[in-house]
């Protein structure tokens, strides 16, 4: 699309999220969400095929419903507390509605069905924005209302998300669907810790965004959207192969890579709050996630898939794709574990 239009749309999208992040009046928060939604629809439809139309429509319907539910919660809150600011949300009905609305926006189970469909229908760069930038606004609201969230509502959603994210991704070969299920599972981890220590949710969000950005950019770099095309990266860019190996292990939460830090911190906070079976369940189910990341690693770096001879002799051109900040992001998404004490700056 033409550059001026793209800049306007991007600006609206960023402005929408910024308005959500910085406002204390519930109405402006809702306005920010709507700005964000309307601006991202053209981005989801960068390629004009029916699949993208279907994905954009599903996304719009889902998010609009969630925004309406959020507005309902806001109005109930207005009714019971008499004011529009974010600080006092003590009415349980309002809090429940807001939590469910935010869960729908994030793609937490049982409202997760749209995430794989939408992510699959859109180009990789739009998927990148969908799975990283779009999570910031709902999670910031979740952070701000976290003292009043009913844990009995959020914890089952979180556990169900991790389970769905693990089992759903097992049968996928399309990379975008794999990343969608990965997003569902990570959102589950983030939701699990929000009632107890929202700082860890921010930590998990930061590390998740860094890792997912890197993953998407590496996949875009090798122009692969399926596992079998990913298995040809050893010939196109051998370095990407090694990076995908390290990154998949980090996404799966293997020490000593940085993907382990949020899991460790979340388990620590949950055990401090006397919950033992929940972190055990979450941690063990995250191994399902690790299984399909390992499968990607096997396909890319550790084995050579059957291919024709033409595929084995490719020219290695300089890339012309925009890989913004890929090296620093890669380093951050794998080597951040020794800097764990640094996260106290998030408080």
């Amino acid at each position, binding site marked *: 699309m033409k550059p001026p239009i793209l800049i306007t749309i991007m600006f609206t999208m960023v402005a929408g999220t910024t308005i959500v992040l910085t406002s204390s009046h519930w109405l402006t928060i809702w306005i920010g969400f709507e700005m964000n939604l309307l601006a991202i629809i053209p981005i989801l439809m960068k390629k004009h095929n029916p699949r993208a139309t279907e994905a954009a429509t599903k996304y719009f319907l889902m998010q609009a419903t969630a925004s309406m539910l959020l507005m309902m919660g806001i109005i109930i809150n207005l009714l019971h507390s008499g004011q529009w600011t974010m600080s006092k949300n003590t009415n349980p009905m309002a809090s429940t509605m807001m939590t469910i609305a935010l869960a729908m926006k994030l793609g937490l189970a049982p409202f997760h069905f749209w995430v794989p469909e939408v992510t699959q229908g859109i180009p990789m760069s739009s998927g990148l924005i969908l799975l990283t930038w779009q999570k910031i606004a709902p999670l910031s609201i979740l952070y701000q209302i976290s003292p009043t969230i009913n844990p009995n509502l959020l914890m089952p959603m979180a556990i169900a998300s991790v389970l769905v994210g693990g089992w759903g991704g097992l049968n996928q070969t399309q990379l975008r669907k794999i990343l969608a299920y990965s997003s569902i599972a990570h959102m589950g981890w983030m939701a699990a810790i929000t009632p107890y220590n929202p700082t860890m949710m921010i930590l998990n969000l930061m590390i998740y965004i860094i890792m997912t950005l890197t993953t998407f950019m590496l996949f875009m770099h090798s122009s692969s959207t399926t596992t079998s095309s990913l298995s040809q990266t050893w010939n196109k860019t051998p370095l990407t192969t090694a990076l995908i190996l390290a990154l998949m292990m980090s996404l799966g939460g293997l020490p*000593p890579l940085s993907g382990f830090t949020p899991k460790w911190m979340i388990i620590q906070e949950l055990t401090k709050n006397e919950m033992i079976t929940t972190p055990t369940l979450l941690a063990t189910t995250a191994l399902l996630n690790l299984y399909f990341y390992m499968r990607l690693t096997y396909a890319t770096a550790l084995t050579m898939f059957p291919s024709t001879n033409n595929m084995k002799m490719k020219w290695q051109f300089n890339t012309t794709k925009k890989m913004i900040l890929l090296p620093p992001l890669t380093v951050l998404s794998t080597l951040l574990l020794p800097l764990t004490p640094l996260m106290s700056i998030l408080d």
Partner: protein
Amino acid sequence: MLKIIIPTTMLIPLTWLSKSNMIWINSTTHSLLISLISLSYLNQFSDNSLNFSLLFFSDPLSAPLLALTTWLLPLMLTASQNHLSKETIARKKLYITMLTLLQLFLIMTFTATELIMFYILFEATLAPTLIIITRWGNQTERLNAGLYFLFYTLVGSLPLLIALLYIQNTTGSLNFLIAQYWVKPISTTWSNIFLWLACMMAFMVKMPLYGLHLWLPKAHVEAPIAGSMVLAAVLLKLGGYGMMRITVLLNPLTGQMAYPFLMLSLWGMIMTSSICLRQTDLKSLIAYSSVSHMALVIVAVLIQTPWSYMGATALMIAHGLTSSMLFCLANSNYERVHSRTMILARGLQTLLPLMAAWWLLASLANLALPPTINLLGELFVMMASFSWSNTTIALMGTNIIITALYSLYMLITTLRGKQTDHVKNIKPSFTRENALMALHLLPLLLLSLNPKIVLGPIH
């Protein structure tokens, strides 16, 4: 401790910046020099005061394991030269980097004070091992082997993380040197039973315990020689070391919880020894013999007497050297015949007499011939388990007989008898291979002169 960690880390730039005809020489020499540094830690003071910093310490249990780990890296590099000779230079450097990274994590694991750091590095050793097995193994079964290895260990160790964090919240610190003084006896409630299980299952899987040992034959057989060496010699000992550390925090519940695992280990050591008698695959035989020896270590750690701890430590070091040597010998067969089937390469004594001498000595060490430290370990464990319960002597004695049986079976099948036709044109033994076997055997024989180094913290 940094005087070992930083040189080991710098082995990686050394490998990548060396000329292509110097990579093996540089990395082997420098890793030998690093192992000489670690030998200085064997000089332990009697008041267990060898603390280097808040993060690292060394006591009579971890110092021999550290020396074993650092000694093994040059041996692994020496053993890998042949099967990597046809690879590109970048892949050779990558392999050496993986081995060095694994070495680094292992060094830090054995000397960590904080149990969470121990956990992180314990898990970190999985990734380079997985890469070595899956990328450089030889058969298609290696894919399954890598996955079994990774997931068995991870499913066992995630509850360990949660248990460690719980213990940190209740006891206040997981620094091992402090926690052993602050520990309170834990009673027999359901939640404490699960705590005990969560703490111990990770190490049981790693040892491995008999019922959870399915990953081991796969991983050992499919790994290339350096992978098999490090798996058998050091990674299994991580389980034993971890168990000896964590049981400090788990008394007196261990007295009751240990029974099922003792039964599994006692029965398992006989079962796996017996399976060795029916193996056709040479590496699989050595892998099952590892399970059998480690079952002895599990029995020793679980009955928690001073003699059994001494026996467990001695057995770990002895088995590390012996098992690694047996894998090197099996690999020297594999590189010539390109098959691991035992009966395909028979009668090697007339063709390779010096290698036959190494085979003999390794098998004699494996069956715990006096005065090797293998015997010392097994004898101490046997005596301790006899005092724990008189009936175990029957099982232990049967195990010793069957161990002798399969070791001699392996010896006779590979060395004696008429040669098969296709071994008549194998290459003679390289000096590198003879040096490798000598370097494995020399510490083992020297330790039989002064075994108190490897007898652990009780001595």
